[in-house]
């Protein structure tokens, strides 16, 4: 019985020593944070149309408004109807984004819902965000 206790004690010491090496991470300091996070809460606009017919189509980010208009993006999300929150890891600075939604209702419904040209017309929202080091900046696109 005594021998068993010693064996357990030796095993425990062995495990502790081993784990120490793995989890301690040595003397290396943690890598410095060089980025911030942009979190876009991509809510659909409120329209008098069935929600299942309103679709997210674009969420792209650029460094300047010119780049945004020219389609020179630094990041674009693969947007989904089932996903609302989109996160981008960016170096600190000022960014501009655009978010687009479209409508797949038949007839004139989309037109009356404010989608230019009717079915599959795109409504755009854009915004300016300032990303700070190590911070999460949240923004909600505002559709006119």
């Amino acid at each position, binding site marked *: 019985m005594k021998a068993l206790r010693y064996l357990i004690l030796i095993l425990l010491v062995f495990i502790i020593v081993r784990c120490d090496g793995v989890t301690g991470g040595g003397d290396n300091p943690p890598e410095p944070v060089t980025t911030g996070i942009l979190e876009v809460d991509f809510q659909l606009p409120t329209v008098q149309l069935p929600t299942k017919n309103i*679709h997210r189509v*674009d969420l*792209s980010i650029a460094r300047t408004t010119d780049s945004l208009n020219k389609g020179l993006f630094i990041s674009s*999300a693969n947007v989904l109807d*089932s*996903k609302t929150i989109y996160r*981008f890891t960016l170096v600190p600075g000022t960014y501009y984004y655009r978010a687009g939604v479209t409508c797949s209702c038949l007839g004139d419904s989309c037109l009356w819902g404010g989608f230019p040209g009717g079915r599959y017309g795109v409504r755009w929202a854009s915004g300016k965000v300032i990303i700070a080091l190590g911070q999460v900046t949240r923004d909600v696109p505002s559709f006119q």
Partner: protein
Amino acid sequence: MNRIIPIFLILLLVSCSNELPVNMDSSGVPVVYCVLDMDDSLQQVRLAKSFLPQEGDFEQDHYTVEQWNEPVEIYLEEWTDAHTPVIYNFSRVNEISQDTGFFADPSFQLYQTYLKPIENTVYYLYLWFPERQYFTYASTTAIGHTEIINPAAIPSRKVTFSETDDYIIELQPQPNTEFLQFNFHLTIEQHSGDDFIQGHFNLGDQVNQEYNGQVMTYLLNSERFYADLLKQYDTLTGNDYRHITGIEFNVFSYGSELRIYNQLYDNGSQPWEIQSYSSFRNGFGLFSSKAKSRTANLELSDLTYYILTNDPRYKHLKFVQ
């Protein structure tokens, strides 16, 4: 307790008496492959013969097949209701090459019937061998078409492949669908002077998953898109360029039998190898169904084109938007 064991043994022997010990048949065993195509009105059965194995040879994954040289009657029962099945007879065809398609091998004899399968319907395939006086048979429930939720056929929603964002595929498989192969299929033209060559580039994967009624989500690694492009295409010089003229997303769905078939041997990207698995009684082979779903007219995003045309790692491929 002592009385129960003999009774159990007798029951066991009686219940097994209508099964043929296929691996012991010295005149060969029927090998049958039939994957009902839900998108076609012409269905095919492949039939060959194999001399399997002594006991213990089951460790071998693959077996060889030979031509079937005995009379056979092949028919399919379609059970749309619980009372009377609709019967379709298969007839032999010689004019079609037998070394292409699923489970290709020149030794297979080909049989065809005209039938457009119905989703969620039970089918029984029977092969009657008059000289041997037995049936080889199997059943399957025909699958439906997998619904592609994303990529969706929504104009303006474009496909982005970038290092910061993997692509999320969302699929809704239909009942009994348990093996899926899917890919982005790009049509790429390579222009040289006034000539061009059209080629295709595929990016996809396959999933074995038991049907659970849930939406299946799959993360397609964006970096693979660029890595595979570099593997498939080389540097262009002069005024030559490449132009992506079409993108579509295809999903090939298969019945639960295919999931078992592939899981059994971990076939990886070669799911159509002929192997010693059987969904048949009194024979070897596979009876299942397949269906294709497709989203066409997709577009790559501006960011993807920007990376393709400006990033020094891919610029030499000379893609244009």
